[in-house]
């Protein structure tokens, strides 16, 4: 069964203090790894999809990378508005099975 583990569970950073969130996964095969941002009381907001080891994607202060066993979400010079829970999810390799398996998330707090 696919498993996704995110660490740390919670992270508090000063504004401007860069860091990384980790998502490690155990899957029989990987079609895609997804990163989402979730604000309190809202649904997850799509950030990135990564498909193969070595791939990187960037969006503003966020950069996602992928290896064969884990993904990192790097946050550079974060601002208070980056505070949210960040979720990663994996998708199995077989087309027709669109189920995403989610990790429990990292709750990020950026202190002004």
């Amino acid at each position, binding site marked *: 069964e696919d498993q996704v583990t995110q660490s740390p569970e919670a992270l508090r950073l000063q504004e401007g203090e860069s860091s990384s969130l980790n998502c490690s996964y155990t899957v029989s095969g990987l079609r895609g790894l*997804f990163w989402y941002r979730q604000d309190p009381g809202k649904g997850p907001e799509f950030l990135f*999809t990564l498909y193969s080891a070595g791939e990187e994607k960037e969006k503003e202060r966020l950069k996602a990378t992928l290896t064969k066993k884990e993904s990192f979400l790097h946050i550079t010079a974060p601002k208070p508005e980056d505070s949210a829970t960040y979720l990663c999810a994996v998708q199995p390799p077989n087309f027709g099975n669109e189920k995403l398996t989610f990790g429990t998330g990292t709750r990020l707090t950026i202190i002004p």
Partner: protein
Amino acid sequence: SAVISQKPSRDICQRGTSLTIQCQVDSQVTMMFWYRQQPGQSLTLIATANQGSEATYESGFVIDKFPISRPNLTFSTLTVSNMSPEDSSIYLCSAGINRGYGYTFGSGTRLTVV
């Protein structure tokens, strides 16, 4: 990407009653998904809803408890039946336009059963 309207946004219900949650997508999608997110936990898939066929339920979820309708390519409903306090949770619908290109979520329904 798709935009999903989900309602109600929240509700407080008496135990033993049922609640139907609606999701409307602004474009046609093949698959829609229903998730549950319990307090402080991550998302758990309840079922996949395909237009024109019965929904596919994940282990631990049954049709009698969570009946789903998918009458067309832009709309789906999830009913939480015979509710108990253990059903208190956030329920989310999701849809994808293209396989693997990111799935959009609705804003969620916060359900409290008293």
